[in-house]
């Protein structure tokens, strides 16, 4: 075993690194993955609002889509997305598509 021993661990099983589940990517949980079709996105924020993993990020910048200009853009951080499909289900414009994962 390469795990640390009792004398090396903080006492009482305290976890000292906040937010350290980030070390555990949950991409492998996915059978389907959400793909955002930015051209259909109206920036309603709902996917960002409802994602249980907080894994849809809001990028700031200048984004030109078709004839419209936006100051934000939504992207999936695939490391953590579990593929639940809530974002796709809630998206009012069906801008998010769930596509099967391939090996």
């Amino acid at each position, binding site marked *: 075993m390469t795990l640390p021993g009792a*004398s090396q*661990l903080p*006492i009482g099983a305290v976890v000292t690194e906040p937010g350290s589940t980030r070390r555990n990517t949950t991409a492998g949980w996915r059978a389907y993955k959400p793909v955002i079709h930015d051209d259909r996105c109206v920036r309603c924020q709902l996917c960002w609002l409802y994602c249980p993993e907080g894994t849809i990020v809001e990028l700031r910048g200048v984004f030109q889509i078709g004839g419209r200009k936006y100051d934000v853009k939504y992207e999936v951080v695939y490391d953590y997305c579990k593929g639940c499909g809530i974002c796709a289900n809630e998206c009012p414009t069906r801008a998010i598509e769930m596509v099967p994962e391939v090996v």
Partner: protein
Amino acid sequence: MREALTSNYAAAYAVKAADVDVIAVYPITPQTTIVEKLSEFVSSGELDAELIHTESEHSALSAVLGAAAAGARVFTATSSQGLALAYEVLHIASAMRMPIVMATPARALSAPINIHNDYSDVMNMRDTGWVIYIASSAQEVYDTVIQGYRVAEGVNLPVAVAYDGFLMSHTLEPVELNDEGEVAKFLPRAARPHVLDPRRPVTFGPLVSPDWYYEFKYQQVTAMNEAREWVVKTDVEYGQWFGRSYGLVEGYLLEDADYVVVTYGGAAYGNARAAADLARERGVAAGVLRIRLYRPFPTGEVVKALSGVKTFAVLDRAIMFGSPAEGPLYKDVVLAMYLHGVDKPSLNVIHGIGQRAMYVRDIYKVFQALREGPGRGVMYMGVRP
């Protein structure tokens, strides 16, 4: 300062001297007068602490656990049913390494309900990972609660200070009180390894899988050994500061004793000493060994004290049903001797259950029995079979 206090009040005075921050308690006989005295101290302004009157002992221990995790110095106290109700949290408090100090005037467990003294409550917490002292005078209760904070905060383990319910908790005796300023110096606020601090967030109490769990249990094993050293060191230093110290075990007429009664608590030790005096008067080389630190068990000290005797009896005040012999201390002593390869005949005497009157003459009879011949096994004394 010489005062006249019950052991319960002595505990309360020690808590005041330790300038405790958070107290959480729930009343139960015979612990109640500690709570009442502390309530007085807080409401008179003599002690600046938050006193939480919880809705149960499970919550009382949980509340001091939470407060300790937030970095406060804490105190609680309970007995009997209260201790049993908080049982789940006893294990958690030690494993989470919380420096809680708890006073435990010992009382018989239900059923049937009996508010009087024996050690069935305390003995049932002996494996929970707490440091357990058993005091035998109000003075010792006072001193030990103060020492307890040093040990608890030193080794990050909870500490219980047990003593006889009623027979001590409600018995007024002389107590020498320390200067509170000196106590404050003796008990500086130590920086704790981890506390609940928004500026350095940590997670207490995670889910731990088979890959990791054992290591934390092993840490507790190690910590118990360290605790033994902390207890010794603290006791010695306390003696230097305040003039009183006790050791892990205490002997009475032990030096040349052939027949020894091993016991704990106020009534058993007190009456055993009186009985030893009586026996000595009649020419029997009697002695008494008192266990002051019950957990971690002072194996070495006990074996050393008993190595020279002919035979001994362990006087227990609790019954562990269905065990090969039912006395809890007896099991510890036999095991301690075994581990050191010493084999001597000995008796387990069980007495004073539910505060059945335990007379000096009873213990005198134990010395007689020891002299009459070696034996192995349990002797129920004072019961009407």
